[in-house]
């Protein structure tokens, strides 16, 4: 049972990645893989500031800004230098590895002796329940914020940028600036995800971001499959499904481990699982 509880909590931690990938991939239609780097960056900044006993109101904004900055740089390289977005993301992600290692000064920073968000907010006696309630509140808050944002005039302009660039430029939107802002937002959310995860697991590690983009992609693809299947148009419901996708994704991995699959094979299983969800609708479609 503990196994599934951990998966649930991890899923909540990864909601930020899922929302970030949803914004870059689904709303802006940009395949952004700055993720691996910006996720680690978020963890590194969290660990360094926490071990220096900084308060939440400094750590959280600093983490989000760091992620946003990484995304904005990818956006700048893509829009101003006209570099393919995948390559722009790979470049920033690669560069961030050195940045992260330099910031850390070693490959792992444990949070022993530092109070985490979960220690500072003892809402429930049971530590797991306490973590769960805090994570749920954070995830609910960011989902509400993103949901609101998408309904504002700015949010409509964001959605139109990914949907019909000719149209939205003719309607007075600088799509280059908009894409930079979008990638900044996406990677800010990804760093936030890492802020939660680092405190949940109690350390930041230089390799914590390796392959993490697949977690976001998997969650979004699960959500999208359901969105298309049930023809959902509500923005709120779509966001809720993205969060549900993040949790479902971790659950599947937990089941995989519990039936005795070697932990070393986990990334392989992850990749195959994502391939399955991507191809299943198409396979059944071909039969018709």
């Amino acid at each position, binding site marked *: 049972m503990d196994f599934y509880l951990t998966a649930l909590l991890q899923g909540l931690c990864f909601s930020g990645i899922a929302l970030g990938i949803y914004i870059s991939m689904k709303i802006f239609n940009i395949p952004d893989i700055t993720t691996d780097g910006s996720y680690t960056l978020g963890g590194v900044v969290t660990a360094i500031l926490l071990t220096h006993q900084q308060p939440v109101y400094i750590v959280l904004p600093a983490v989000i800004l760091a992620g946003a900055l990484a995304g904005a740089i990818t956006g700048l390289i893509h829009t101003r230098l006209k570099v393919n977005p995948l390559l722009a993301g790979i470049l920033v992600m690669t560069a961030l590895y050195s940045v992260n290692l330099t910031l850390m000064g070693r490959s792992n920073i444990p949070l022993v002796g530092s109070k985490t968000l979960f220690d500072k907010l003892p809402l429930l006696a049971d530590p797991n329940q306490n973590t769960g309630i805090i994570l749920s509140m954070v995830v609910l808050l960011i989902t509400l914020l993103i949901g609101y944002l998408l309904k504002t005039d700015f949010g409509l302009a964001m959605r139109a940028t990914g949907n019909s660039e000719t149209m939205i430029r*003719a309607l007075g939107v600088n799509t280059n600036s908009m894409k930079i802002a979008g990638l900044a937002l996406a990677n800010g959310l990804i760093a936030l995800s890492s802020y939660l995860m680092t405190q949940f697991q109690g350390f930041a590690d230089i390799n914590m971001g390796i392959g993490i983009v697949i977690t976001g992609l998997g969650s979004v693809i699960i959500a999208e499959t359901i969105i298309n299947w049930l023809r959902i148009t509500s923005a709120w419901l779509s966001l809720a499904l993205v969060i549900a996708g993040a949790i479902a994704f971790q659950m599947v991995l937990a089941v995989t481990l519990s039936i005795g699959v070697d932990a070393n094979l986990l990334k392989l299983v992850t990749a195959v699982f994502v391939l399955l969800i991507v191809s299943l609708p198409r396979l059944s479609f071909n039969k018709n």
Partner: protein
Amino acid sequence: MIALNTVHKVFNKGKASAVTAINNISLNIAPGEFVVVVGSNGSGKTTLLNLVAGSIFTDAGSIHIDGNDVTRMADHQRSKWVARVFQNPLSGTAPDLSIIDNFRLAAIRTQRKGLSIGVTGNFREKVRQHIAILGMSLENKLEQPMGTLSGGQRQALTLVMSVMDSCKVLLLDEPTAALDPRSADTVMRTADKLIHDFKLTSVLITHNLKDAYQYGSRIIQMNEGAILRDISGDDKGRLSQNEIFNWFS
């Protein structure tokens, strides 16, 4: 309202494939004028419109809109004065956004897209009234995604969208080319009505010589990046459909 001063545009400059798309054109379009542009394929009509809209920039010469030098301004900056309807009905609207969301963006074309929610009850009512003039009974489908509508419906809505915010110049690049004859007729009549009602300065590119004859206060024929004929006022009125046909024989 629109002034082009010896505007020149070469594509692929310096390469073997260089094309002079616009060859030192000077053109003045007065406020309220409705200019119809005809010309064979590749004569530079679209390029001319794109230069005015700012999707591409001139190699030489200057462009003024409403007295402002816009020569170096990007398309999204010129949208302060200019609204556009594209040849492809897909280009003028966002297919995954609902009708009402598309209209909201159009209604703030010249304004900042801020962090408040603009799709309110009042706004819906305003859009409903605007759309009702089309007589296509789309006013009750505001939540429907644009992508579910036909090309003709989308072009007609794009036209209405262009007058949701202050608009001085309307640029139409073969707005009916992708439509069946009946929708094409509706779209042309809607365009003509809006241009008159809102006193828009407009430029319409068309391959339909009947439309070129029927609509507009001035007709321009382009050939190889230059203006071959330019007929306005009473002379345009006296022009017969046959004469226009003969320009192309």
